[in-house]
């Protein structure tokens, strides 16, 4: 394709749109990871299940 300013402008426009989409995708990843983090933290708090036992007992 001829190297024109129109082609360059079109590429720049596409690049901006893709960066917006993937910035939004990264935001979703943060939400996903936050949910996972909360559950893993809760499991750490609960311990491994035997009632009355603390991890400090080991």
């Amino acid at each position, binding site marked *: 394709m001829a190297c024109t300013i129109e082609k360059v402008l079109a590429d720049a426009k*596409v*690049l901006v749109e893709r960066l917006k989409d993937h910035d939004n*995708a990264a935001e979703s990843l943060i939400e996903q990871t936050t949910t996972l983090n909360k*559950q893993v933290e809760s499991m750490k708090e609960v311990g491994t299940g035997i009632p009355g036992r603390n991890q400090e007992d080991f």
Partner: protein
Amino acid sequence: VAANSPSMYSQELFQLSQYLQEALHREQMLEQKLATLQRLLANTQEASDSSWQALIDEDRLLSRLE
């Protein structure tokens, strides 16, 4: 800079076109990695859900035994 010189603009347009092609390519690679992260996190969440549910079930069982 001779603003009306076609050959200078052609060189710079070419360089600009190269940069933008490289940026688009690199951005696509980054996007693929974000998609991979999404899948890995989903799998991890699923495995964590299993363990969490097992803790809840065990707690209910032990409560009934008390």
